[in-house]
């Protein structure tokens, strides 16, 4: 136990400063991305950077896309979207569940589901 206490005491003031700075940066970063997180009524489903589907968020629909690992099933319902089934090993995309803003990424199958407005690329709006 005294070893644990010694180890804790060895943490320097610079360690703490680094810790606080990193925590502040990532927390303010999370508010920042929440602000810019796209909302809209369009769901874009891309595989390997290529747009496969553009769906309306208000229309109930289930589609399947084929990626390098197999078939990913994407479900749109009640203004939200989720990856219902995926061939990837860790199923991060499925576990993210229903999403109404931002994006769902499945890296192994190269599937990116983004919620956004109709505007193509670029900055949609800048407010001062």
């Amino acid at each position, binding site marked *: 136990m005294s*070893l*644990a206490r*010694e*180890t*804790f005491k*060895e*943490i*320097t003031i*610079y*360690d703490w400063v*680094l*810790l606080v700075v*990193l*925590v502040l*940066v*990532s*927390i303010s*970063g*999370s508010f*920042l*991305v929440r602000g*810019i*997180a*796209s909302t809209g009524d369009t769901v874009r489903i*891309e595989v390997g*950077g290529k747009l496969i589907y553009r769906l309306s968020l208000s229309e109930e629909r289930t589609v399947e896309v084929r990626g390098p690992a197999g078939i990913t099933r994407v479900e749109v319902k009640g203004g939200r979207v989720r990856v219902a089934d995926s061939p990837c*090993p*860790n199923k*991060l995309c499925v*576990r*993210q569940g229903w999403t109404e803003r*931002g*994006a*769902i*990424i499945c*890296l*192994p199958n*190269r599937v*990116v589901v*983004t919620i*956004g407005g109709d505007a193509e690329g670029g900055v949609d709006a800048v407010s001062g």
Partner: protein
Amino acid sequence: MQSRDRLRIAILAAYAIGLHGLERMIPAPLPWLRFGLANIITLTALMLYGLRVALTITLIRVLLVSLLTGSFLGPGFVLSLGGGVASTLLMGLASALLSSLFSPVGISLIGSMAHNLTQLTLAYLLFIRRMEPILFVTPLILLLGIITGMVNGMASGLLLKKLKGDSPEVKAAAGRES
């Protein structure tokens, strides 16, 4: 390379792979949360035996784990390799230049940041090619990385203390490095 070095590398790499395997069996409470327990070994090796040994251990671990899990040359392998090498190099740089400022905890935090930022950059450049979804997950991943980096750093600090207390040989090695 001395045969003693080779032996150390083999044993420490085995520990790193063992911890990595253990970690895979623990169900993560949150998606995106990886504990990075193998980093405890990387950091300890770095502090005791220097950058070359730590880097070799990282390369062996990434290669063997990918072969054991069948993900060799897949996206997960590329991200593991990039993250592992970048974090080991940056921790080596930090411990060489800033060891008077930071304890293993600070070095581990630096390594965790290097690991995550490299992986996010690689995921963007190689696989996703869209900035928005990457930016969206970055703060959460960094925040989780701070917690695991802190815990791993303390575990490594504890391990270093225990080793230095128990083994005159390790004590001598640690004294030579600093």
